[in-house]
Structure formats: structure tokens, C-alpha cells
């Protein structure tokens, strides 16, 4: 592996980036002014649009057994009953019962209307104390999709002008230039040129008709160049006909509309990415190590454009994991005396089905994988998913989530951790600093590149 960023450079970038991320709420434009009536009306409009037969059936299947609390890291860590996942759907349920339930004619007599104060109280429940990880979905005897319904709540909060300032800032940035954290085209080009110089071969940019488009993210551009560099180096090593796109949102995988509840931004971003991908004519898109970017494009592209799309979307671990499993990519098995744990990012794992691929990679690299007690579809969130790593108001809860997760990692006897998601990685890094932990947290893409066998120079090499 070619070192595209040193440990010291990464730590310095991390310190600077963390300082910047901690203050983005102050940089946000003021929240939109609305009357309480407008807030309620807009939130209800979102709820009513989002309640279909599936949501209704699931809401009517809840028996208030409370099992979901026992799957939620925020309840487990605080034992505060207000964090019971199903409680986070109370407003949605009330709107459903009053307006759309077949029994609404009766429910109207017993179920109060939602109010603006109810919406304000809901903000902490659907942002700070829920990462939409969906672990509660897995324990519910009625299999209620609480995670997705919290997403619907976030959309209602955003429509009511109540999304946290930090997420408004991120949304505004993405609306303005299609990227996040100000990772504009100049910065992207600078980073890619820097990586290119270190890797020693030309990185194809905007190559029409390439087989594969590799996307990155603002987080990787600022902080985790090893993840982007690792993916580029591996594609080059495999001899894949790939390209990167120089324009937003062709290089930006992150979609903060999707995380924050701003549905119009989510759709706009995905539509623009899809148009650019189709213009390039690639067959496969690899989204970066950025958990939510996978479902946002993989399951969101066709929905955004209103028709099926003719390209495949894979996440980094999925693409390279399949290559390992199919024998298209051989990795060098090395001796790793330290046991390693794998964190399955919720959006890629439980919401994406990518489980076997990262494990195949680690096995091919010779790692001694120690699975946490909750793994694969039962995996605990890192504590800061769904953009919560950016919310200072959620700091205490993030640490609670981190502790739960790290407790399992420690119990598994792992001395190293690998993740394939930038925001998980960010949350682990911050959690480590706050908890005084020292376990190394590595990018899976960087690990792959570090296990590429030596081979003769391939076409495009400068040196």
C-alpha cells in the first residue's frame, strides 16, 4: 500500500476537522420562521403523505410490549424510558389514528391533535436519540419498521422547520454546491492530485464509458484520504477500467438530505448524481466508505428519477469483497497477531445486506476476526450514525452508544477495529478521545490496499 496520508497528517486533519464540525451549528442560517399552525400543518402533511398501507398495518400491529427498548443502545445505556423506540412514533401514530385509520371516526374522539410543542419535544427523540439504525426492527415481535418511521418523523421535523441547526447547515451546503463540509471541486481536485502524486499513476477523471465510477465524500476528502486512496489503488491494481468524476455531485456520495429529513434535497442530490452517472455511461458505481451513501443511491436512484436505472451501485466493501470471493482480487495473507473486530455500518449492513464481503476481505488478509456478540443484522450502531456525530446536543448519547458498542468489541477480545464508513470512523475516533481508549480504528479500503500483492507495473503507471 502506498501511504497517501501519514498518521500524523490524519491526526492533525482530524483535530482541525473536529473543531470545524463542532461549530457548524453557529454557522447555520437562522431557522425558518413559521407560526405554530404552519409547523403543525407541514408536519402533518409529511406524515399523511408517508403513511401507506404498510405503515398503517405496522402501526396497527404494535402491542406496546416494549421489547424495542431492549434493542436500543440509547435505552440500554441510559435506562431512560423516553428513549423506547416505539415511543418515538407517538406523533405519527396520533396523526394516523385521527386522520387515516379505518377507525379514525372513533379515534378523533379519544386522540388529541398534535401540537407545535409536541413537535418541539419530538426533536430530541428522532434526532439526538435515534440513529435510525433499525436494531429495534429486529427484536419487535410484530417486525415493525421503526427505523424507517423515525426517518419519516425526521422529514416531518425538517418540514416544520425544526431540524437541528447543524443539519440545516449541512443541507444548505449540499443544496448550494452538491457537496458537504465545503469539499468543493477545487478541494477535490487538490486531494486527487495529491493522491495521484503519491500513488504514482494517473487517476482517470471524467472518463466516459468507463466500467466503474468511484465516488468519494467530503469526509474522505478532508480526513480519510486513506480510504479513497486505498480504493483507487486497488482498482488500479485490479486493472479495472474506472474513473472518478470531477464535478459535484459526481464525486460526492454523501446525501445529507437523506439523513436530516430534507426530502427535496435528498431527491435533488440523488437525481443530479444519477444524471451525471448516466452521462458518463458507467456500468457500476462504487459509493465511498460512507454508510448512508449506499442506500441513498442504491435504493434511492430509481425512486428519485421515477424509473429503473441501468447501472449497478455497490459500496466499497461489497465491490472488493465480491472480487475477493470471485477470485478477481487476490490479497496477500499477512500475519496479524492482534485480533480484529469488524463494525458492520447499519446502513450498509442491516439496511444493505453487505455482511459476507467485508469478512471475506479480512479472511483473505489473514486477520483473526473476533465477532462481537451482536453482529451482522444485529450489530449495534457506533452511536453517532445518521449524522448524529455532528450534533453537539447528542454528545452524551453518542458516548452512551459508543460505550455499548465498544463494550462488545472489548468483550470480543479485539485489539483493533475495522470499519467501512467514514462517519462511524469519525464517531469512534471522537469516542476514543473522550473515553481515553486507544484501539486503532482502520478503514477497510485502506486495509485492502495494504494487502495488495506486489506486481509488475500496469498500464498507466508513471513510475
Amino acid at each position, binding site marked *: 500500500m502506498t501511504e497517501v496520508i501519514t498518521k500524523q497528517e490524519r491526526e492533525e486533519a482530524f483535530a482541525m476537522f473536529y473543531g470545524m464540525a463542532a461549530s457548524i451549528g453557529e454557522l447555520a442560517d437562522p431557522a425558518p420562521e413559521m407560526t405554530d399552525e404552519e409547523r403543525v400543518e407541514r408536519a402533518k402533511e409529511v406524515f399523511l403523505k408517508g403513511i401507506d398501507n404498510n405503515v398503517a398495518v405496522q402501526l396497527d400491529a404494535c402491542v406496546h410490549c416494549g421489547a424495542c427498548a431492549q434493542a436500543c443502545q440509547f435505552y440500554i445505556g441510559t435506562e431512560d424510558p423516553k428513549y423506547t423506540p416505539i415511543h418515538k412514533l407517538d406523533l405519527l401514530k396520533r396523526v394516523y389514528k385521527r386522520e387515516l385509520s379505518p377507525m379514525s371516526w372513533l379515534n378523533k374522539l379519544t386522540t388529541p391533535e398534535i401540537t407545535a410543542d409536541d413537535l418541539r419535544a419530538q426533536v430530541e427523540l428522532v434526532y439526538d436519540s435515534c440513529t435510525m439504525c433499525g436494531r429495534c426492527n429486529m*427484536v419487535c415481535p410484530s417486525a415493525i419498521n421503526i427505523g424507517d418511521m423515525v426517518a419519516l418523523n425526521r422529514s416531518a421535523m425538517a418540514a416544520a422547520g425544526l431540524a437541528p441547526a447543524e443539519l440545516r447547515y449541512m443541507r444548505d451546503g449540499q443544496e448550494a454546491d452538491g457537496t458537504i463540509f465545503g469539499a468543493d471541486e477545487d478541494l477535490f481536485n487538490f486531494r486527487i492530485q495529491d493522491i495521484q502524486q503519491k500513488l504514482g499513476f494517473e487517476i482517470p477523471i471524467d472518463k466516459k464509458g468507463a466500467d466503474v465510477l468511484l465516488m468519494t465524500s467530503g469526509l474522505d476528502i478532508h480526513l480519510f484520504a486513506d480510504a479513497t486512496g486505498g480504493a483507487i489503488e486497488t482498482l488500479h491494481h485490479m486493472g479495472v477500467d474506472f474513473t472518478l468524476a470531477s464535478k459535484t455531485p459526481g464525486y460526492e456520495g454523501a446525501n445529507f438530505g437523506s439523513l436530516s429529513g430534507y426530502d427535496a434535497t435528498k431527491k435533488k442530490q440523488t437525481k443530479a448524481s444519477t444524471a451525471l452517472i448516466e452521462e458518463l455511461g458507467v456500468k457500476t458505481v462504487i459509493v465511498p466508505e460512507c454508510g448512508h451513501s449506499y442506500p441513498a443511491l442504491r435504493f434511492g436512484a430509481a425512486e428519485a428519477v421515477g424509473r429503473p436505472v441501468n447501472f449497478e451501485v455497490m459500496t466499497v466493501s461489497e465491490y472488493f469483497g465480491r472480487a475477493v470471493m470471485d477470485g478477481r482480487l487476490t490479497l496477500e495473507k499477512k500475519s496479524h497477531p492482534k485480533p480484529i473486530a469488524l463494525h458492520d455500518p447499519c446502513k450498509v449492513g442491516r439496511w444493505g445486506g453487505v455482511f459476507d464481503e467485508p469478512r471475506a476481505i479480512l479472511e483473505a488478509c489473514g486477520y483473526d476476526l473476533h465477532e462481537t456478540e451482536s453482529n451482522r443484522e444485529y450489530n449495534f450502531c457506533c452511536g453517532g450514525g445518521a449524522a448524529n456525530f455532528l450534533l453537539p446536543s447528542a454528545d452524551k448519547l453518542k458516548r452512551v452508544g459508543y460505550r455499548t458498542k465498544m463494550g462488545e468489541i472489548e468483550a470480543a477480545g479485539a485489539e483493533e477495529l475495522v470499519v467501512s464508513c467514514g462517519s462511524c470512523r469519525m464517531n469512534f475516533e471522537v469516542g476514543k478521545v473522550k473515553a481515553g481508549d486507544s484501539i486503532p480504528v482502520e478503514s477497510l479500503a485502506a486495509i485492502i490496499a495494504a494487502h495488495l500483492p506486489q506486481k509488475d507495473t500496469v498500464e498507466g503507471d508513471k513510475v
Partner: protein
Amino acid sequence: MSLLDFARGPALQWAAVVFVIGMLWRTLGLLLMLRARPLSKDRKTGLAGAGVKTMFSRFLLPKVFAKRVGFQFLLGWIWHLGFVITLLFFQVHVLFFKGLLGFGWPALPNSVVLPVAAVSLGILVILLVRRVTNPVLRYISTFNDYSSVIVTILPFATGFATFAHVPALPYETLLALHFLSVALLLVWFPFSKLFHVITVLPSRYILGVKFWRRGVEA
């Protein structure tokens, strides 16, 4: 008309009418609602099969949740099973259904059904107490939750009182109270969370399909 005549006559009949109309209304209302159709390509095939699998796999608790949810899961299993056994296989109930439907089925001996019913009643009482004392359950519980447990307990309690000929009341009054408690259960059913009898399996199917589209067994 005596209380017993009223209870096993008009009360039970009207309760049955409310039950049937209410259940049909709510079920049809749900069926007629629109559902979103995804356009993105599925990661796996065999969605319907996966949905059906989830309908049944959720009867079992994943091992990873056993420590935290095992007790309540087990209680739920036992009392639901006990309810079905008592309702359908108690000798007197089989005779009742035979009179109603014109055909019957073999009953289980009282020595089996009565302990089963007693255990079910005991668990329902424990679940009610737990709902009051457990912080999570107390926090999320509504009138619907408490009333539904109580309305389910009543037929068990009045049934035992009737079977045991509790001396506090005449037998006919006890029997009338049992019929009335069943009538109350029937009326309450479509309007309450007891309706989950209809929605629980479709709800599991929905998540099973949703997750299998993404390659995850729910």
C-alpha cells in the same frame, strides 16, 4: 328475561355482530390503503418467500436478545397458547361451538385445560402488574394497553369462578358474567390493540420483504 338469558342471547349476539363488522371494517380499511412500490432493483429474489419466512421466524427470539427479552417473550408465548387451548379445547367450549356451528372436535381433559388456563390467567395478571411496575411499559402504556389486558383477563377469571361454582354468587349469575365478559372481549377487539391478531403476520411479512429486497433476513 333473566340476566343469563340476556347474556347468552342478545348480549352475545350483538357483541358478535359488532366484532364481525368491526373486524371487517378495519381490515378492509387497511387493505384499501395505497402502498408504495419500489423501483430500485432488488438485491435478492424470492421476496414473497422471505416475507412468509419472517412471518414464522418472528415466533422465535434471536439468541442475541435472549437475555433482555427472553422472559417476556416466553410469557407471551405461553399465555397466547394457553388462551387458544382454553378457548378451543375446553370441554364446555367445544360443546358451545358444536351448538353454534353444528360440528365439534375432540376436547382435552379438564385435568389438562384447567392448569393451562390457570397458568394463562396467572401470566396475564403478571403482565398487567409488570405494565404498572416496569418503567418502560409504564411510560409507553395507554388506556388501550391496560384495558385490553383487563378485558382479556375477565373471561378467564369469570370462567374459573363459574367452573368452581364460587359460592359468593348463584351459578346462573356467574355463568351470565362469563358470557358478558366474552361479549365485552368481542366488542373491544376491533377497536383496540387486540386487533393485532389480524395485523401481526402481515406486518412481519412487510418487513421480511423490505429487508430481503436488501439482502437481509429479518
